[in-house]
Protein backbone atom coordinates (compact mmCIF):
# COMPACT_ATOMS: atom_id res chain seq x y z
CA UNK A 1 0.00 0.00 0.00
CA UNK A 2 2.72 2.40 0.99
CA UNK A 3 5.46 3.47 -1.42
CA UNK A 4 7.89 4.34 1.34
CA UNK A 5 9.99 1.49 2.73
CA UNK A 6 10.25 1.09 6.51
CA UNK A 7 12.12 4.03 8.07
CA UNK A 8 15.13 1.92 9.06
CA UNK A 9 15.36 0.56 5.49
CA UNK A 10 15.29 4.05 3.99
CA UNK A 11 18.16 5.10 6.25
CA UNK A 12 20.10 1.92 5.50
CA UNK A 13 19.82 2.48 1.76
CA UNK A 14 20.79 6.14 2.02
CA UNK A 15 23.83 5.22 4.09
CA UNK A 16 24.89 2.55 1.60
CA UNK A 17 24.53 5.05 -1.24
CA UNK A 18 21.73 3.09 -2.92
CA UNK A 19 19.28 5.94 -2.33
CA UNK A 20 20.04 9.62 -2.29
CA UNK A 21 18.58 11.93 0.35
CA UNK A 22 18.12 14.56 -2.37
CA UNK A 23 15.94 12.21 -4.42
CA UNK A 24 13.87 11.29 -1.37
CA UNK A 25 13.24 14.96 -0.62
CA UNK A 26 12.16 15.55 -4.23
CA UNK A 27 9.83 12.54 -4.03
CA UNK A 28 8.23 13.87 -0.85
CA UNK A 29 7.85 17.35 -2.37
CA UNK A 30 6.24 15.84 -5.49
CA UNK A 31 3.89 13.84 -3.28
CA UNK A 32 2.87 17.04 -1.54
CA UNK A 33 2.07 18.67 -4.85
CA UNK A 34 0.14 15.66 -6.11
CA UNK A 35 -2.00 15.63 -2.95
CA UNK A 36 -2.46 19.39 -2.71
CA UNK A 37 -6.25 19.15 -2.76
CA UNK A 38 -6.19 17.63 0.76
CA UNK A 39 -4.52 20.75 2.15
CA UNK A 40 -2.34 18.95 4.65
CA UNK A 41 0.38 21.58 5.05
CA UNK A 42 0.73 25.29 5.71
CA UNK A 43 4.32 25.83 4.68
CA UNK A 44 6.75 23.83 2.57
CA UNK A 45 10.35 24.10 3.74
CA UNK A 46 11.81 23.05 0.38
CA UNK A 47 14.94 25.17 0.43
CA UNK A 48 15.91 24.08 3.90
CA UNK A 49 15.18 20.44 3.02
CA UNK A 50 17.23 20.49 -0.20
CA UNK A 51 20.17 22.03 1.62
CA UNK A 52 20.12 19.37 4.30
CA UNK A 53 19.69 16.59 1.74
CA UNK A 54 22.73 17.59 -0.28
CA UNK A 55 24.77 17.85 2.92
CA UNK A 56 23.65 14.35 3.85
CA UNK A 57 24.51 12.98 0.41
CA UNK A 58 27.94 14.63 0.56
CA UNK A 59 28.52 13.14 4.00
CA UNK A 60 27.71 9.65 2.71
CA UNK A 61 29.98 10.15 -0.31
CA UNK A 62 32.82 11.01 2.06
CA UNK A 63 32.14 7.90 4.11
CA UNK A 64 30.71 9.85 7.09
CA UNK A 65 28.00 8.71 9.53
CA UNK A 66 24.68 10.04 8.18
CA UNK A 67 22.56 8.90 11.14
CA UNK A 68 19.81 6.44 11.97
CA UNK A 69 17.26 8.46 10.00
CA UNK A 70 19.54 9.39 7.11
CA UNK A 71 17.52 11.02 4.34
CA UNK A 72 14.11 10.24 5.86
CA UNK A 73 11.74 13.10 4.98
CA UNK A 74 9.14 14.11 7.55
CA UNK A 75 6.49 16.72 8.33
CA UNK A 76 6.00 18.48 11.67
CA UNK A 77 2.78 19.97 12.94
CA UNK A 78 3.00 23.75 12.68
CA UNK A 79 3.22 24.20 16.46
CA UNK A 80 6.84 22.92 16.38
CA UNK A 81 9.47 25.62 15.99
CA UNK A 82 11.92 24.79 13.21
CA UNK A 83 14.86 27.07 12.67
CA UNK A 84 14.29 29.52 9.85
CA UNK A 85 10.76 28.33 9.10
CA UNK A 86 7.48 30.08 9.75
CA UNK A 87 5.66 28.70 12.79
CA UNK A 88 2.06 29.81 13.04
CA UNK A 89 0.21 27.14 15.08
CA UNK A 90 -2.41 27.79 12.34
CA UNK A 91 -3.27 31.06 14.06
CA UNK A 92 -3.56 34.57 12.71
CA UNK A 93 -1.76 35.99 15.72
CA UNK A 94 1.39 34.01 14.81
CA UNK A 95 1.01 34.36 11.05
CA UNK A 96 4.11 36.57 10.70
CA UNK A 97 6.24 34.58 13.16
CA UNK A 98 9.54 33.04 12.06
CA UNK A 99 11.15 30.63 14.49
CA UNK A 100 14.45 31.96 15.87
CA UNK A 101 15.32 28.57 17.41
CA UNK A 102 14.00 25.05 17.12
CA UNK A 103 12.23 22.32 19.05
CA UNK A 104 14.38 19.69 20.73
CA UNK A 105 12.35 16.97 18.98
CA UNK A 106 13.20 18.41 15.56
CA UNK A 107 16.81 18.96 16.63
CA UNK A 108 17.13 15.31 17.67
CA UNK A 109 15.50 13.96 14.49
CA UNK A 110 17.64 16.13 12.26
CA UNK A 111 20.78 15.19 14.18
CA UNK A 112 20.03 11.61 13.06
CA UNK A 113 19.65 12.70 9.44
CA UNK A 114 15.86 13.13 9.10
CA UNK A 115 14.75 16.01 6.87
CA UNK A 116 11.83 18.34 7.58
CA UNK A 117 9.95 19.10 4.35
CA UNK A 118 6.82 20.90 5.57
CA UNK A 119 4.75 22.18 8.49
CA UNK A 120 1.27 20.70 8.76
CA UNK A 121 -2.14 22.21 9.39
CA UNK A 122 -3.83 22.01 12.80
CA UNK A 123 -6.71 23.52 14.71
CA UNK A 124 -5.30 26.90 15.75
CA UNK A 125 -3.11 26.44 18.85
CA UNK A 126 -4.20 22.76 18.74
CA UNK A 127 -7.68 23.66 20.01
CA UNK A 128 -9.95 21.22 18.27
CA UNK A 129 -10.68 17.78 16.89
CA UNK A 130 -11.07 18.37 13.14
CA UNK A 131 -8.66 21.10 11.84
CA UNK A 132 -11.79 23.20 11.23
CA UNK A 133 -10.54 25.60 13.91
CA UNK A 134 -7.45 26.36 11.81
CA UNK A 135 -7.43 30.10 11.10
CA UNK A 136 -6.34 29.25 7.52
CA UNK A 137 -8.12 26.24 5.97
CA UNK A 138 -9.57 22.78 6.64
CA UNK A 139 -7.61 19.60 5.85
CA UNK A 140 -9.57 16.85 4.07
CA UNK A 141 -9.77 13.22 5.16
CA UNK A 142 -7.77 10.99 2.77
CA UNK A 143 -10.57 8.40 2.79
CA UNK A 144 -13.39 10.85 2.02
CA UNK A 145 -12.78 14.45 1.07
CA UNK A 146 -16.11 15.58 2.50
CA UNK A 147 -14.98 14.51 5.97
CA UNK A 148 -12.55 15.88 8.54
CA UNK A 149 -9.18 14.20 9.17
CA UNK A 150 -9.65 14.62 12.93
CA UNK A 151 -7.52 16.93 14.96
CA UNK A 152 -5.80 18.75 16.11
CA UNK A 153 -2.85 16.99 14.38
CA UNK A 154 -5.09 16.46 11.32
CA UNK A 155 -2.57 17.70 8.76
CA UNK A 156 0.13 15.35 10.06
CA UNK A 157 -2.18 12.32 10.18
CA UNK A 158 -3.58 12.98 6.69
CA UNK A 159 -0.08 13.48 5.24
CA UNK A 160 1.07 10.10 6.55
CA UNK A 161 -2.15 8.40 5.40
CA UNK A 162 -1.65 9.93 1.93
CA UNK A 163 1.90 8.52 1.93
CA UNK A 164 3.43 11.95 1.39
CA UNK A 165 6.12 11.20 3.98
CA UNK A 166 6.91 8.07 6.02
CA UNK A 167 6.22 9.82 9.34
CA UNK A 168 5.07 13.08 10.90
CA UNK A 169 5.16 14.69 14.32
CA UNK A 170 2.07 15.67 16.25
CA UNK A 171 1.10 16.86 19.71
CA UNK A 172 -1.53 15.29 21.96
CA UNK A 173 -3.15 17.29 24.77
CA UNK A 174 -6.57 15.59 24.83
CA UNK A 175 -6.29 13.11 21.97
CA UNK A 176 -4.83 15.24 19.19
CA UNK A 177 -2.49 12.52 17.88
CA UNK A 178 -4.62 9.42 18.46
CA UNK A 179 -7.99 10.73 17.25
CA UNK A 180 -6.76 11.96 13.81
CA UNK A 181 -4.61 8.81 13.45
CA UNK A 182 -7.78 6.79 14.05
CA UNK A 183 -9.82 8.88 11.59
CA UNK A 184 -7.11 8.59 8.89
CA UNK A 185 -6.17 4.93 9.38
CA UNK A 186 -2.59 5.36 10.60
CA UNK A 187 -0.67 4.77 13.85
CA UNK A 188 -0.63 7.61 16.39
CA UNK A 189 1.41 7.47 19.58
CA UNK A 190 1.04 9.51 22.75
CA UNK A 191 4.02 8.79 25.03
CA UNK A 192 3.98 8.97 28.82
CA UNK A 193 3.74 12.58 29.96
CA UNK A 194 7.23 14.05 30.14
CA UNK A 195 8.96 11.42 28.00
CA UNK A 196 9.55 13.76 25.04
CA UNK A 197 10.92 17.26 25.46
CA UNK A 198 8.49 20.08 24.63
CA UNK A 199 11.14 22.73 24.31
CA UNK A 200 10.32 24.70 21.18
CA UNK A 201 6.73 23.48 20.92
CA UNK A 202 3.94 26.01 21.35
CA UNK A 203 2.28 25.27 24.67
CA UNK A 204 -1.42 24.52 24.94
CA UNK A 205 -2.19 22.83 28.28
CA UNK A 206 1.16 22.27 29.94
CA UNK A 207 0.08 19.59 32.40
CA UNK A 208 -1.07 17.26 29.59
CA UNK A 209 0.77 18.33 26.38
CA UNK A 210 2.91 15.56 24.87
CA UNK A 211 4.72 15.09 21.57
CA UNK A 212 4.59 11.92 19.52
CA UNK A 213 5.01 10.34 16.09
CA UNK A 214 2.35 9.52 13.52
CA UNK A 215 3.50 6.59 11.38
CA UNK A 216 2.32 3.70 9.22
CA UNK A 217 3.51 0.92 11.55
CA UNK A 218 4.81 0.11 15.02
CA UNK A 219 8.45 -0.39 14.02
CA UNK A 220 8.54 3.17 12.72
CA UNK A 221 6.79 4.49 15.86
CA UNK A 222 9.41 2.79 18.03
CA UNK A 223 12.31 4.00 15.87
CA UNK A 224 11.17 7.64 16.14
CA UNK A 225 10.32 7.47 19.85
CA UNK A 226 13.73 6.00 20.58
CA UNK A 227 15.33 9.12 19.12
CA UNK A 228 13.10 11.86 20.55
CA UNK A 229 12.54 10.41 24.06
CA UNK A 230 14.47 11.26 27.19
CA UNK A 231 15.68 14.04 29.44
CA UNK A 232 16.30 17.48 28.03
CA UNK A 233 17.88 20.30 29.99
CA UNK A 234 15.64 22.74 28.11
CA UNK A 235 12.46 21.10 29.47
CA UNK A 236 12.57 20.44 33.20
CA UNK A 237 9.44 18.25 33.04
CA UNK A 238 11.19 15.54 31.01
CA UNK A 239 11.80 12.05 32.41
CA UNK A 240 14.48 9.43 31.65
CA UNK A 241 13.88 7.08 28.77
CA UNK A 242 13.64 3.30 29.29
CA UNK A 243 17.09 1.78 29.80
CA UNK A 244 16.37 -0.66 26.96
CA UNK A 245 15.28 2.09 24.61
CA UNK A 246 12.20 1.62 22.43
CA UNK A 247 13.46 -0.18 19.32
CA UNK A 248 11.46 -3.37 18.89
CA UNK A 249 13.37 -6.58 18.31
CA UNK A 250 12.51 -8.93 15.46
CA UNK A 251 11.42 -11.71 17.79
CA UNK A 252 7.93 -10.49 18.38
CA UNK A 253 6.16 -10.34 21.70
CA UNK A 254 3.95 -13.33 22.49
CA UNK A 255 0.35 -12.28 22.97
CA UNK A 256 -0.49 -15.35 25.02
CA UNK A 257 1.50 -13.80 27.85
CA UNK A 258 -0.60 -10.63 27.74
CA UNK A 259 -3.41 -9.67 30.10
CA UNK A 260 -5.70 -7.22 28.35
CA UNK A 261 -8.59 -5.32 29.90
CA UNK A 262 -11.44 -4.02 27.76
CA UNK A 263 -12.64 -0.74 29.21
CA UNK A 264 -16.37 -1.24 29.82
CA UNK A 265 -17.16 2.48 29.93
CA UNK A 266 -15.76 2.93 26.41
CA UNK A 267 -17.86 0.13 24.94
CA UNK A 268 -21.11 1.53 26.32
CA UNK A 269 -23.77 3.87 24.96
CA UNK A 270 -22.77 6.58 22.53
CA UNK A 271 -20.53 4.20 20.61
CA UNK A 272 -21.37 3.97 16.91
CA UNK A 273 -22.48 0.45 15.99
CA UNK A 274 -19.98 0.09 13.14
CA UNK A 275 -17.13 1.13 15.43
CA UNK A 276 -18.25 -1.35 18.07
CA UNK A 277 -18.31 -4.16 15.53
CA UNK A 278 -14.76 -3.43 14.34
CA UNK A 279 -13.45 -3.23 17.92
CA UNK A 280 -15.26 -6.46 18.90
CA UNK A 281 -13.74 -8.13 15.85
CA UNK A 282 -10.24 -6.93 16.77
CA UNK A 283 -10.63 -8.10 20.36
CA UNK A 284 -11.72 -11.54 19.14
CA UNK A 285 -8.57 -11.82 17.05
CA UNK A 286 -6.43 -11.01 20.09
CA UNK A 287 -8.36 -13.61 22.08
CA UNK A 288 -7.78 -16.26 19.41
CA UNK A 289 -4.07 -15.50 19.55
CA UNK A 290 -4.11 -16.46 23.21
CA UNK A 291 -4.33 -13.11 24.99
CA UNK A 292 -6.11 -13.25 28.30
CA UNK A 293 -8.93 -10.75 27.86
CA UNK A 294 -11.61 -9.60 30.26
CA UNK A 295 -13.80 -6.59 30.80
CA UNK A 296 -12.73 -4.02 33.37
CA UNK A 297 -14.65 -1.08 34.78
CA UNK A 298 -13.04 2.30 35.42
CA UNK A 299 -16.14 4.26 36.40
CA UNK A 300 -14.46 7.69 36.57
CA UNK A 301 -13.10 7.60 33.03
CA UNK A 302 -16.13 9.24 31.38
CA UNK A 303 -15.61 12.18 33.78
CA UNK A 304 -12.21 12.88 32.24
CA UNK A 305 -13.74 15.07 29.55
CA UNK A 306 -15.35 17.36 32.12
CA UNK A 307 -12.06 17.50 34.03
CA UNK A 308 -10.28 18.31 30.78
CA UNK A 309 -12.62 21.15 29.86
CA UNK A 310 -11.79 22.86 33.12
CA UNK A 311 -8.06 22.15 33.35
CA UNK A 312 -7.30 22.67 29.67
CA UNK A 313 -8.92 26.11 29.24
CA UNK A 314 -7.38 27.20 32.55
CA UNK A 315 -3.91 26.34 31.28
CA UNK A 316 -4.72 27.69 27.80
CA UNK A 317 -5.75 31.06 29.22
CA UNK A 318 -2.38 31.27 30.97
CA UNK A 319 -0.32 30.01 28.03
CA UNK A 320 -2.00 32.35 25.54
CA UNK A 321 -1.39 35.38 27.75
CA UNK A 322 2.03 35.79 26.12
CA UNK A 323 0.45 36.65 22.75
CA UNK A 324 -0.08 40.30 23.41
CA UNK A 325 1.24 41.96 20.26
CA UNK A 326 4.32 43.40 21.94
CA UNK A 327 7.27 41.09 21.34
CA UNK A 328 6.23 38.99 18.35
CA UNK A 329 3.18 38.02 16.32
CA UNK A 330 0.34 40.18 15.09
CA UNK A 331 0.27 43.68 16.55
CA UNK A 332 -2.58 46.09 15.91
CA UNK A 333 -1.07 49.33 14.67
CA UNK A 334 -4.18 51.47 15.16
CA UNK A 335 -4.00 51.04 18.94
CA UNK A 336 -3.49 54.30 20.80
CA UNK A 337 -2.30 53.01 24.18
CA UNK A 338 -0.84 49.86 25.71
CA UNK A 339 -4.14 48.39 26.93
CA UNK A 340 -5.87 48.80 23.58
CA UNK A 341 -2.79 47.39 21.86
CA UNK A 342 -3.18 44.20 23.93
CA UNK A 343 -6.94 44.02 23.46
CA UNK A 344 -7.05 44.75 19.75
CA UNK A 345 -4.07 42.54 18.85
CA UNK A 346 -5.67 39.64 20.72
CA UNK A 347 -9.16 40.36 19.36
CA UNK A 348 -7.95 40.23 15.76
CA UNK A 349 -5.29 37.56 16.24
CA UNK A 350 -7.29 34.87 18.03
CA UNK A 351 -10.02 32.76 16.44
CA UNK A 352 -13.37 31.82 18.00
CA UNK A 353 -12.16 28.68 19.78
CA UNK A 354 -9.07 30.30 21.32
CA UNK A 355 -11.28 33.08 22.67
CA UNK A 356 -13.81 30.60 24.00
CA UNK A 357 -11.07 28.73 25.88
CA UNK A 358 -9.47 31.91 27.18
CA UNK A 359 -12.86 33.01 28.53
CA UNK A 360 -13.65 29.65 30.17
CA UNK A 361 -10.15 29.43 31.60
CA UNK A 362 -10.34 32.93 33.01
CA UNK A 363 -13.74 32.11 34.49
CA UNK A 364 -12.73 28.87 36.23
CA UNK A 365 -9.58 30.44 37.63
CA UNK A 366 -11.23 33.64 38.83
CA UNK A 367 -11.69 34.24 42.52
CA UNK A 368 -14.82 32.65 43.91
CA UNK A 369 -14.87 29.92 41.26
CA UNK A 370 -11.40 28.44 41.66
CA UNK A 371 -12.31 25.82 44.28
CA UNK A 372 -15.61 24.86 42.67
CA UNK A 373 -14.14 24.28 39.23
CA UNK A 374 -10.36 24.06 39.03
CA UNK A 375 -9.57 22.42 42.36
CA UNK A 376 -12.53 20.06 42.07
CA UNK A 377 -11.41 19.01 38.58
CA UNK A 378 -7.85 18.35 39.71
CA UNK A 379 -9.22 16.23 42.57
CA UNK A 380 -11.35 14.13 40.21
CA UNK A 381 -8.14 13.80 38.20
CA UNK A 382 -6.59 12.03 41.21
CA UNK A 383 -9.49 9.58 41.15
CA UNK A 384 -8.91 8.83 37.45
CA UNK A 385 -5.20 8.26 38.08
CA UNK A 386 -5.88 5.84 40.92
CA UNK A 387 -8.40 3.86 38.86
CA UNK A 388 -5.80 3.47 36.12
CA UNK A 389 -3.14 2.46 38.67
CA UNK A 390 -5.50 -0.17 40.14
CA UNK A 391 -6.33 -1.56 36.69
CA UNK A 392 -2.65 -1.88 35.77
CA UNK A 393 -2.11 -4.04 38.87
CA UNK A 394 -4.10 -6.68 36.99
CA UNK A 395 -3.65 -5.86 33.31
CA UNK A 396 -0.72 -5.20 30.99
CA UNK A 397 -2.74 -2.94 28.71
CA UNK A 398 -6.27 -1.57 28.51
CA UNK A 399 -8.10 -1.38 25.20
CA UNK A 400 -11.11 0.32 23.66
CA UNK A 401 -12.01 2.43 20.64
CA UNK A 402 -10.00 5.59 19.98
CA UNK A 403 -13.18 7.54 19.15
CA UNK A 404 -16.89 6.82 19.47
CA UNK A 405 -17.44 7.48 15.75
CA UNK A 406 -15.58 7.40 12.46
CA UNK A 407 -14.56 10.68 10.76
CA UNK A 408 -17.47 13.11 10.69
CA UNK A 409 -18.51 15.47 7.89
CA UNK A 410 -16.81 18.82 7.48
CA UNK A 411 -19.14 21.40 9.04
CA UNK A 412 -21.16 18.85 11.03
CA UNK A 413 -20.02 19.93 14.51
CA UNK A 414 -18.52 23.31 13.89
CA UNK A 415 -21.37 25.29 15.42
CA UNK A 416 -21.72 23.10 18.48
CA UNK A 417 -18.56 23.33 20.62
CA UNK A 418 -19.71 20.76 23.17
CA UNK A 419 -20.43 18.09 20.56
CA UNK A 420 -16.99 18.75 19.05
CA UNK A 421 -15.44 18.34 22.51
CA UNK A 422 -17.23 15.00 22.93
CA UNK A 423 -15.24 13.46 20.07
CA UNK A 424 -12.29 13.32 22.52
CA UNK A 425 -14.25 11.47 25.21
CA UNK A 426 -12.20 8.26 24.89
CA UNK A 427 -8.77 9.83 24.52
CA UNK A 428 -8.64 12.50 27.24
CA UNK A 429 -8.41 10.19 30.26
CA UNK A 430 -4.86 9.12 29.33
CA UNK A 431 -3.89 12.80 29.06
CA UNK A 432 -5.25 13.62 32.49
CA UNK A 433 -3.41 10.65 34.02
CA UNK A 434 -0.25 10.87 31.91
CA UNK A 435 -0.37 7.23 30.75
CA UNK A 436 1.03 6.28 27.34
CA UNK A 437 -1.60 5.40 24.71
CA UNK A 438 -1.70 4.52 21.05
CA UNK A 439 -4.21 4.26 18.22
CA UNK A 440 -3.71 1.62 15.53
CA UNK A 441 -5.90 0.84 12.52
CA UNK A 442 -8.39 -1.89 13.46
CA UNK A 443 -10.48 -2.10 10.30
CA UNK A 444 -13.13 -0.18 8.37
CA UNK A 445 -16.72 0.77 9.11
CA UNK A 446 -18.61 1.92 5.99
CA UNK A 447 -15.23 2.35 4.29
CA UNK A 448 -13.92 4.67 7.01
CA UNK A 449 -11.03 3.72 9.33
CA UNK A 450 -11.63 2.73 12.95
CA UNK A 451 -8.85 3.11 15.50
CA UNK A 452 -8.17 0.64 18.30
CA UNK A 453 -6.77 2.40 21.35
CA UNK A 454 -4.35 0.66 23.71
CA UNK A 455 -3.38 2.36 26.97
CA UNK A 456 -0.28 1.29 28.91
CA UNK A 457 0.91 1.71 32.49
CA UNK A 458 2.67 4.93 33.49
CA UNK A 459 6.20 4.98 32.02
CA UNK A 460 5.44 1.57 30.47
CA UNK A 461 5.95 2.82 26.93
CA UNK A 462 8.17 -0.07 25.94
CA UNK A 463 5.73 -2.70 27.14
CA UNK A 464 2.84 -0.90 25.41
CA UNK A 465 4.75 -0.80 22.12
CA UNK A 466 5.68 -4.50 22.35
CA UNK A 467 2.12 -5.61 22.97
CA UNK A 468 0.74 -3.26 20.32
CA UNK A 469 3.23 -4.66 17.81
CA UNK A 470 1.91 -8.16 18.48
CA UNK A 471 -1.64 -6.85 17.98
CA UNK A 472 -0.67 -5.05 14.76
CA UNK A 473 0.48 -8.34 13.25
CA UNK A 474 -2.98 -9.83 13.84
CA UNK A 475 -5.20 -6.97 12.67
Amino acid at each position, binding site marked *: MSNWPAISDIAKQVKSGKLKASDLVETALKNLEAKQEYQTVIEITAERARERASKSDALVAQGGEAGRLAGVPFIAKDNFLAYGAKTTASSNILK*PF*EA*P*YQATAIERLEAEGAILIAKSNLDAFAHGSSTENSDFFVTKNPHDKTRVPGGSSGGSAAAVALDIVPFALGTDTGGSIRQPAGFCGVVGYKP*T*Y*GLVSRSGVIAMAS*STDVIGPITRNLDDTAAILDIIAGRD*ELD*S*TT*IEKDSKGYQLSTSSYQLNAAKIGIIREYMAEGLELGVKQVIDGAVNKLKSAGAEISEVSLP*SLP*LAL*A*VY*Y*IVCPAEVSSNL*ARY*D*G*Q*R*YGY*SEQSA*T*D*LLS*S*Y*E*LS*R*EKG*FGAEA*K*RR*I*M*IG*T*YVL*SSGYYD*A*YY*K*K*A*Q*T*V*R*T*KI*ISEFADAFEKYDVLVGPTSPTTAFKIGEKVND*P*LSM*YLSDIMTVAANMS*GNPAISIPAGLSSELPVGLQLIGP*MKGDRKLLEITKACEELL
Partner: protein
Amino acid sequence: MSVISREELLKLAQLARLKLTEEEISRLPNELSVILEYVRQLDKVDTSGLEPTYQVTGLKNITRTDELKEYQAKPAELLKNAPAVQANQFKVKRVI
Protein backbone atom coordinates in the same frame (compact mmCIF):
# COMPACT_ATOMS: atom_id res chain seq x y z
CA MET B 1 -27.43 26.23 35.91
CA SER B 2 -24.69 28.76 35.61
CA VAL B 3 -25.54 31.58 33.31
CA ILE B 4 -22.98 34.22 32.52
CA SER B 5 -24.42 37.71 32.39
CA ARG B 6 -23.32 40.35 29.92
CA GLU B 7 -21.57 42.25 32.74
CA GLU B 8 -19.74 39.15 33.90
CA LEU B 9 -18.69 38.38 30.34
CA LEU B 10 -17.27 41.84 29.83
CA LYS B 11 -15.43 41.65 33.17
CA LEU B 12 -13.85 38.31 32.14
CA ALA B 13 -12.89 39.69 28.75
CA GLN B 14 -11.25 42.64 30.42
CA LEU B 15 -9.30 40.35 32.78
CA ALA B 16 -8.17 38.32 29.76
CA ARG B 17 -7.30 41.44 27.73
CA LEU B 18 -9.74 40.56 24.99
CA LYS B 19 -11.92 43.10 23.26
CA LEU B 20 -15.06 41.28 22.17
CA THR B 21 -17.17 42.15 19.15
CA GLU B 22 -20.94 42.69 19.51
CA GLU B 23 -21.47 39.32 17.82
CA GLU B 24 -19.27 37.60 20.41
CA ILE B 25 -20.96 39.43 23.27
CA SER B 26 -24.31 38.06 22.19
CA ARG B 27 -23.07 34.53 21.32
CA LEU B 28 -20.61 33.71 24.12
CA PRO B 29 -22.81 33.76 27.27
CA ASN B 30 -24.89 30.89 25.96
CA GLU B 31 -21.92 28.93 24.57
CA LEU B 32 -19.94 29.25 27.78
CA SER B 33 -22.95 28.34 29.92
CA VAL B 34 -23.49 25.11 27.97
CA ILE B 35 -19.87 24.11 28.55
CA LEU B 36 -19.88 25.14 32.21
CA GLU B 37 -23.10 23.23 32.75
CA TYR B 38 -21.48 20.13 31.24
CA VAL B 39 -18.43 20.33 33.49
CA ARG B 40 -20.60 20.85 36.58
CA GLN B 41 -21.31 17.08 36.50
CA LEU B 42 -18.15 16.87 38.61
CA ASP B 43 -20.08 18.43 41.53
CA LYS B 44 -21.75 15.09 42.09
CA VAL B 45 -18.50 13.15 42.32
CA ASP B 46 -17.42 12.16 45.81
CA THR B 47 -13.81 13.26 46.20
CA SER B 48 -13.64 13.28 49.99
CA GLY B 49 -10.20 12.35 51.27
CA LEU B 50 -8.55 12.96 47.89
CA GLU B 51 -5.95 15.59 47.10
CA PRO B 52 -5.82 17.43 43.77
CA THR B 53 -3.17 16.41 41.22
CA TYR B 54 -1.39 19.20 39.40
CA GLN B 55 1.50 17.20 38.01
CA VAL B 56 1.53 13.52 37.10
CA THR B 57 5.16 12.37 37.06
CA GLY B 58 6.07 13.45 40.60
CA LEU B 59 9.21 15.29 39.52
CA LYS B 60 10.33 17.89 42.03
CA ASN B 61 12.83 20.72 42.00
CA ILE B 62 14.66 19.87 38.80
CA THR B 63 17.77 21.99 38.78
CA ARG B 64 20.77 22.57 36.57
CA THR B 65 23.96 24.55 36.99
CA ASP B 66 23.38 28.23 36.53
CA GLU B 67 25.81 29.03 33.78
CA LEU B 68 25.82 31.07 30.62
CA LYS B 69 25.51 28.97 27.47
CA GLU B 70 25.60 29.70 23.79
CA TYR B 71 22.07 29.14 22.55
CA GLN B 72 20.74 28.79 19.00
CA ALA B 73 18.77 32.02 19.08
CA LYS B 74 20.74 35.24 18.94
CA PRO B 75 19.30 38.53 20.27
CA ALA B 76 19.09 40.02 16.77
CA GLU B 77 17.06 37.04 15.55
CA LEU B 78 14.76 37.20 18.55
CA LEU B 79 14.12 40.86 17.86
CA LYS B 80 13.41 40.20 14.18
CA ASN B 81 9.87 39.16 15.07
CA ALA B 82 9.17 42.26 17.16
CA PRO B 83 6.54 44.72 15.91
CA ALA B 84 8.73 47.63 17.03
CA VAL B 85 12.37 47.85 18.08
CA GLN B 86 14.49 50.67 19.38
CA ALA B 87 18.12 50.55 20.56
CA ASN B 88 18.13 46.75 20.32
CA GLN B 89 15.12 46.50 22.64
CA PHE B 90 11.38 45.87 22.32
CA LYS B 91 9.52 49.11 21.94
CA VAL B 92 6.06 49.24 23.52
CA LYS B 93 3.52 51.96 24.14
CA ARG B 94 3.77 54.04 27.29
CA VAL B 95 3.28 51.91 30.41
CA ILE B 96 2.91 54.65 33.02
